[in-house]
């Protein structure tokens, strides 16, 4: 990849991190944390985005970031109080900044009117109350383009302005303290043209009086060059203020330009081959030979005084400046980086490759165990015990490797505050989002696929869950509604809850809608819980409820399906007047699955345990034929469709005797129940999920494959599809009939 394109990718990745940092910092400030480190982090986030954007000439982004940064700088320096109002503006500005970043990344457009309006609001926060941000600094962003190019390009000399310059230069001690060097300045001057250098050592005191940190020498340089004064001054740019500097133009008598003070005819030094050491050695000699010097002159290098260090400059430039003092390689007293937060960034592909390999290791280990058992080794034999240890280790490796892919849910949680702000504004409901357990970790893929359902549920919670401020007031509640988003680990799964403190589910209404839409029989006896769960039924939410906020025809059934696609479950609990809570329970990883291994018509299949409610041995009296191959089974006074898995997958042509098999009671899509008839249950085990699509394609009724201990491939059932296909498209009505029949 083109290195610049790669850096551009890095930039946009980093922007996302900075935007997240920015938002969480602003939210922390809104919650009262106005610690200077928080403000600094917020400032730095915008500052970094601006810096990178400048390098890529993303002008619109730079302009907005600059205005934002200016306002944050006011807050950072204490000139602008972090009031709720100011922070609200900044939070909205962070949203606009995010839009700009994404527009820059995707070559998209931004809402310019919106940007301009917020820029004005930001400026209005400043001390001048809306005076334009300093234009001067905008100029800094003019023509920067990052183009790696040859660095050997010679400086084009400026047009001839005169014969040259006389530069009188007297360093102060500060100049050396900042690691600037007279020798280097002279070298730079030498690049502009031919120079003649004189050193005035008259200020040099006697050895006893020399202050190693002081500067005593003054220099007069005669530069024969076409360079203009600006170029000459530029040489001294970094030492401005740390030296006395006088630059005067010379007559155009090229080559002769000795200054008025020049006594001896100074040697002319060609610019290209300036020998600084020689020059400084001469200066040294001049100092030595001064009549006022003590007889022994200066015998040893003087620490920190560049003249003394001169002979060594060419080879070891800086070390000599401190040669007189002992080095402290142990870096005593320096703060140490704490080890705790040390992280490395690893390409995801490498992690996935590792996970694949560990998956193979698990399979191999299982195969080995099986063969050892088949070979007739006793359980207590050394081989079998060694294998047990290997199994233990393999599991630990697998857990550790899975943990690499685990990430805190923070990355998806932190997208929600913006959503809450926007939906709150659109619905006119003041709402506060409270998040808990952001650090709870789960597989990266699970996190990525959580964003959509969570977004939808939070929209729903605000749009449908929370009452209007008036209703809340009437109910004696605070005007501001609260939506709580939390995550926690519970028995090997992650549990995520979305709770609102709204009015709770209106069960009368839900029931009447369900009846109206033909989802349930009018007289179906339903518990409160069953009524609440009706909202997950396909067809429950219809176009009449579609609002801009809750999306177009996306109902809770879609949310439920996407959670189930992740091997998860979702449930709702609601208390009238107090609010509703949606609880999702998800596996920590998508790479393995807890499965029930079953036999069907000579094949070994795996059913995801999450879908199975219970298993039972059908009694002949409970199984009834509904005509054709359709059968139902009575479980606790309810008729439930009995699906012959062997038939559904075309493994056999005639139905098996139900009493010879085992029925797995499952809960599928939309809370629909069914019983899967299999020949026998072999056991439960964790299986590594393998894609069928990688080398083949999707197979209806099959979710994925896995490899069992005998090395053979077993298919993992896609229960929802099997149920849907077996019942046909008219399943809803069938259930209604069943409900009526029951």
């Amino acid at each position, binding site marked *: 990849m083109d290195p610049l394109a790669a850096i551009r990718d890095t930039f946009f990745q980093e922007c996302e991190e900075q935007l997240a940092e920015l938002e969480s910092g602003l939210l922390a400030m809104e919650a009262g944390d106005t610690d200077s480190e928080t403000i600094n982090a917020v400032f730095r986030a915008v500052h970094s985005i601006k810096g990178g954007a400048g390098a890529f000439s993303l002008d619109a982004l730079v302009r907005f970031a600059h205005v934002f940064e200016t306002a944050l700088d006011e807050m950072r320096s204490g000139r602008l109080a972090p009031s709720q109002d100011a922070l609200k503006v900044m939070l909205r500005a962070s949203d606009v900044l995010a839009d700009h970043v994404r527009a820059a990344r995707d070559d998209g457009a931004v809402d310019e009117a919106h940007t301009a309006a917020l820029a004005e609001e930001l400026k209005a926060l400043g001390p001048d109350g809306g005076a334009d941000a300093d234009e001067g600094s905008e100029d800094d962003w003019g023509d920067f383009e990052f183009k790696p190019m040859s660095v050997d390009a010679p400086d084009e000399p400026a047009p001839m302005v005169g014969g040259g310059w006389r530069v009188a230069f007297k360093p102060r001690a500060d100049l050396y303290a900042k690691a600037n060097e007279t020798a280097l300045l002279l070298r730079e001057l030498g690049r502009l043209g031919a120079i003649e250098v004189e050193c005035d050592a008259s200020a040099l005191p006697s050895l006893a009086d020399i202050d190693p940190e002081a500067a005593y020498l003054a220099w007069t340089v005669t530069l024969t060059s076409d360079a203009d004064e600006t170029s000459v001054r530029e040489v001294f740019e970094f030492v401005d203020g740390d030296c006395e500097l006088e630059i005067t133009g010379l007559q155009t008598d090229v080559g002769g330009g000795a200054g008025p003070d020049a006594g001896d005819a100074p040697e002319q030094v060609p610019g290209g081959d300036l020998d600084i050491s020689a020059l400084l050695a001469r200066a040294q000699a001049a100092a030595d030979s001064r009549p006022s010097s003590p007889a022994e002159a200066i015998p040893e290098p003087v620490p920190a005084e560049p003249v003394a260090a001169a002979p060594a*400059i060419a080879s070891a430039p800086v070390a000599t400046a401190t040669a007189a003092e002992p080095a402290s390689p142990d870096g005593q007293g320096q703060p140490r980086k704490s080890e705790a937060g040390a992280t490395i960034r690893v390409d995801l592909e490498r992690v996935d490759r590792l996970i694949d390999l560990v998956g193979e290791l698990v399979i191999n280990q299982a195969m080995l165990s099986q063969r050892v058992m088949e070979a007739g080794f006793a359980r207590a034999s050394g081989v079998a015990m060694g294998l047990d240890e290997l199994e233990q280790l393999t599991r630990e490796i697998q857990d550790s490797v899975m943990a690499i892919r685990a990430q805190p849910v923070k990355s998806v949680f932190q997208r929600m505050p913006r959503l809450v702000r926007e939906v709150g504004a659109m619905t006119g409901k003041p709402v506060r989002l409270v998040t808990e357990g952001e650090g709870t970790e789960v597989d990266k893929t699970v996190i990525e696929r959580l964003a959509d359902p969570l977004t939808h549920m939070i929209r729903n919670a605000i749009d449908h869950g929370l009452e209007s401020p008036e209703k809340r007031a009437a109910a004696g509640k605070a005007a501001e509604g609260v939506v709580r988003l939390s995550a926690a680990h519970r028995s090997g799964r992650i549990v995520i809850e979305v709770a609102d403190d709204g009015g709770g589910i209106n069960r009368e209404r839900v029931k009447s809608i369900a009846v109206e839409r033909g989802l349930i029989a009018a007289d179906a006896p339903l518990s409160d819980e069953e009524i609440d769960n009706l909202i997950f039924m396909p067809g429950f939410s219809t176009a009449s409820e579609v609002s801009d906020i809750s999306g177009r025809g996306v109902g809770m059934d879609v949310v439920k399906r996407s959670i189930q696609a992740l091997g998860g479950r979702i449930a709702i609990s609601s208390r009238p007047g107090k609010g509703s809570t949606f609880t999702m329970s998800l596996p920590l990883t998508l790479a393995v699955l807890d499965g029930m291994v079953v036999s069907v018509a000579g094949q070994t299949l795996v059913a995801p345990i999450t879908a199975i409610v219970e298993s039972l041995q059908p009694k002949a009296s409970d199984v009834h034929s509904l005509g054709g191959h359709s059968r139902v089974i009575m479980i606790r006074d309810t008729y439930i469709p009995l699906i012959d898995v062997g038939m559904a997958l075309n493994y056999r042509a005639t139905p098996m005797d139900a009493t010879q098999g085992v029925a797995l009671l499952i809960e599928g899509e939309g809370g629909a129940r069914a019983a899967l008839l299999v020949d026998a249950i072999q056991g439960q085990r964790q299986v590594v999920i393998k894609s069928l699509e990688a080398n083949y394609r999707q197979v209806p009724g099959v979710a994925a494959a896995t490899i069992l201990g005998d090395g053979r491939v077993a298919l993992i059932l896609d229960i929802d599809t099997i149920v849907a296909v077996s019942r046909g498209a008219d399943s809803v009505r069938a259930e209604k009939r069943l409900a009526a029949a029951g």
Partner: protein
Amino acid sequence: MSMTVLTVDDSRTMREMLRLALADAGFKVLQAEDGVHGLEVLTQGDRPDVIVTDINMPRMDGFGFIEEVRSDPHYRGVPILVLTTESDAEKKNRARMAGATGWIVKPFNPVKLVDAIRRVAA
């Protein structure tokens, strides 16, 4: 022998840009993510010929970093260039007070960057 340059910047983007520009110019590049890390790299790695540092950084900012380097007898002679995002006179002055040798305005032009490094390095 190629020169070694230590860059200290909290932005990954900036670090990659600096590395690209400096490596292209034939420098050996050491990198650190903030002042504290910069001091660590100083004590662990090769002694750099020049240090290029950002100002705004977490944990220890550029000013603090420069002061620390200047207060260490072993490193105080190392030229330090600061990267400033704006030609802000106040920041430049503070950096110089702390002991910065020179400065580069971000976004930097790689030629100017390398030029500035050559200017302050022997």
